[in-house]
């Protein structure tokens, strides 16, 4: 049992750190949840890709470096420690790409992955529907067989950044006569600017258009954009959502960097006699370290050939609650400045207008600026809800890891 990196891994870390030091924008980009910020983050993806840092774990032929899981974790540590921008292509990279590697055709991989790696095509997910959230298998949007492809109809919702993204992927009911709800679903990809697609941005809690509704009216999708066999969509999607909850969605590097920032803020701003706050800062440090070591243990298991299954639900519950906790502590530490942070970008009396806001976030004053914490807090609040609610995750943990009987949800 050891925590030592090989010479190759250490060299990989050194190269990643050097590249990031030379390329990470000196000032944070505008919020990812705005049109201007989205464009800036898309450009950043291109810069990463130009030197093969956007998808290090992918094979070289698709723009990656063929990095193993340990190297990926190393890269993520360096990425977040460097304060590099959020990843606008994350849904494509962490959800669609693993699906294509496992279930796609060589033609699909060659066509879809390189532009994804370069940020030229940014992907949104289209899972949830107004009547199908946690009970995803009850979804009603349809894919009807036509010559050469499928016609999509229905409504999807909570599609992250779909207002700005280029294409989307999701599940559609292709066989309404299937004997069980999760049978007869097909996994498809479609352009968000296709004829028949209407995208309506939804303002998230602070008004920024972070997600959208999609209305689909006879949207034609050619056969080449079906992933796997028609009717097998549920099985394929579940393989993907496992990846989303697991390591790939929230790397330990992100939380190590956040905890480090919190400790610096505590040293800079906190009253040392406030031991209650100190204890919470300690818990943030402990949680980040626990998450890092849990990831190393899973990476070691993965490399030893052991399967990682329902354990990804442990991960999802942990990081999503950790993320809220660490931001709550930061905002409590900052006091009223924490409240002001989010308002800096908006002019008083002109709040973010109904999901269409164009106001941009100003440059933070310091690495511990309230602005960053406020934005991070609002983002974190969604964590226990998306990627499978934490209630669903706890059901999975209880049934698959503890062996408790199934019951009514």
């Amino acid at each position, binding site marked *: *049992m*050891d*925590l*030592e*990196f*090989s010479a190759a*891994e250490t060299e990989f870390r050194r190269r990643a750190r050097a590249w990031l030091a030379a390329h990470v924008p000196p000032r944070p980009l505008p919020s990812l949840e705005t049109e201007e910020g989205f464009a800036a983050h898309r450009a950043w993806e291109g810069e990463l890709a130009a030197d093969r840092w956007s998808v290090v774990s992918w094979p070289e032929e698709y723009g990656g470096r063929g990095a193993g899981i*340990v190297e990926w974790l190393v890269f993520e540590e360096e990425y977040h420690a460097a304060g590099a921008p959020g990843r606008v292509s994350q849904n494509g990279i962490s959800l669609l790409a693993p699906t294509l590697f496992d279930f796609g055709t060589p033609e699909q991989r060659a066509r879809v992955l390189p532009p994804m790696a370069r940020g030229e095509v940014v992907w949104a997910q289209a899972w949830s529907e107004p009547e199908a959230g946690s009970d995803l298998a009850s979804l009603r949007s349809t894919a009807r067989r036509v010559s050469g492809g499928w016609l999509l109809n229905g409504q999807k919702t909570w599609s992250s950044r779909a207002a700005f993204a280029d294409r989307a992927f999701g599940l559609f009911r292709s066989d309404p006569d299937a004997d069980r709800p999760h049978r007869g679903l097909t996994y498809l990809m479609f352009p968000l600017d296709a004829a028949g697609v209407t995208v309506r941005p939804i303002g998230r809690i602070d008004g920024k258009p972070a997600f959208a509704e999609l209305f689909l009216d006879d949207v034609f999708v050619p056969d080449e954009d079906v992933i796997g066999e028609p009717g097998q969509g549920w099985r394929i999607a579940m393989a993907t959502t496992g990846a989303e909850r697991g390591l790939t969605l929230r790397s330990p590097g992100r939380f190590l960097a956040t905890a480090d920032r919190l*400790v610096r803020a*505590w040293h800079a701003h906190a009253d040392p006699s406030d*031991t209650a706050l*100190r*204890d919470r*800062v*300690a*818990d943030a*440090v*402990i*949680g980040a*370290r*626990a*998450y890092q*070591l*849990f990831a*190393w*243990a899973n*990476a*070691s*298991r993965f*490399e*030893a050939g052991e399967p990682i299954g329902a*354990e990804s639900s*442990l991960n999802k*519950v*942990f990081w999503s609650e950790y993320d809220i906790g660490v931001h709550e502590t930061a905002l409590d530490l900052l006091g009223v400045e924490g409240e002001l942070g989010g308002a800096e970008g908006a002019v008083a009396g002109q709040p973010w207008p109904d999901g269409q806001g164009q106001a941009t976030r100003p440059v933070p004053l310091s690495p511990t600026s309230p602005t960053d914490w406020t934005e991070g807090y609002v983002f974190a609040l969604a964590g226990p809800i998306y990627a499978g609610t934490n*209630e669903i*995750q*706890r*059901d999975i*943990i*209880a*049934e698959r*890891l*503890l*062996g*408790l*009987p*199934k*019951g*009514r*949800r």
Partner: protein
Amino acid sequence: MRFLLDDEQRAFARSLDGMLTAADTTAAARAWAAGEHAAGFAVRRRLGAAGVFALAAPEAYEGVGPLPVETAVAFVELGRHAAPGPLVETVAAVALLSRLAELGVPEPAKRSLPGLVGGETSATLTLTGSGPYALDADVAAVLLAAGDAEVRLAPGHADVRTSLDPARRLARLLPGGEVVASGDTADTAAGWALDWAALATAAQCLGVGYALLDRTVAYVKGRTQFGVPVGSFQAVKHRLADVLVGLEFARPLVFGAAVSLRDGDRSAARVDLAAAKVASGEAAYGAARAALQLHGALGYTAEYDLSLWLLKARALRGAWGGVGRWRERVVTGG
């Protein structure tokens, strides 16, 4: 990078589990609480024979160590079986005495280590900053008081007091006795002993937590109300899922701390040990609260074995200084 127990370490855990099961360790814990120590001593001798107390001592001083990872493996099993007695304390004393020997004070080690390492005798100790009480001082052959630039062999102990956990009894050590080390030597050895005490206790908490979880999962699968197992209710499942999350994220901290301690990075080890102590203490305590609630009134009875772990989880949370002390260490490194 291979942050996994190897086959040998897993086999060690299995063999200890088998031995502690065969020795009916929970019965020994009940007897210990009633003041009957023979069964507990027998468990200790078996642990000595299995090499558990040799893990903290280097080869030059009767040991096979220092092997913190294996020590953590052992103490997870000891927690799982609610093993009674000053076991953490004996390991910490072995660490302290062998460290003193390495620092040029070999006499106390020569005198005491053979008995301690072999499991024939046990030790207990107090460490400055970790509270004034020594565990089970009435059964320990070696009473050490360490800290404040001094290590001394206490001449005896004051009245033994009952603990919240009936299997733990606490006593102050008497002043006086032979001072065996002083100055930096004493402080270094005391700091080393505290590291081992924290590691062993954190691992023991993990084992206590898993025992509580396993027993509660088994219970809610079998207990039927409203015509179905209570374990099929979401309120029950989610509570147990949270217990597993707590334990599964505390475990890598415990083994990460053991690796840091082994690899000799003192400042990293101090922070990692503190993190492990806090997280595993909290996880075990959370397991205890959930276990009691989900067992209902049955869990609240002394007769039912669950009480052995329920109260130990509470007691261990405060052992070696309160949780605030360890959290402070995490943020200040001190």
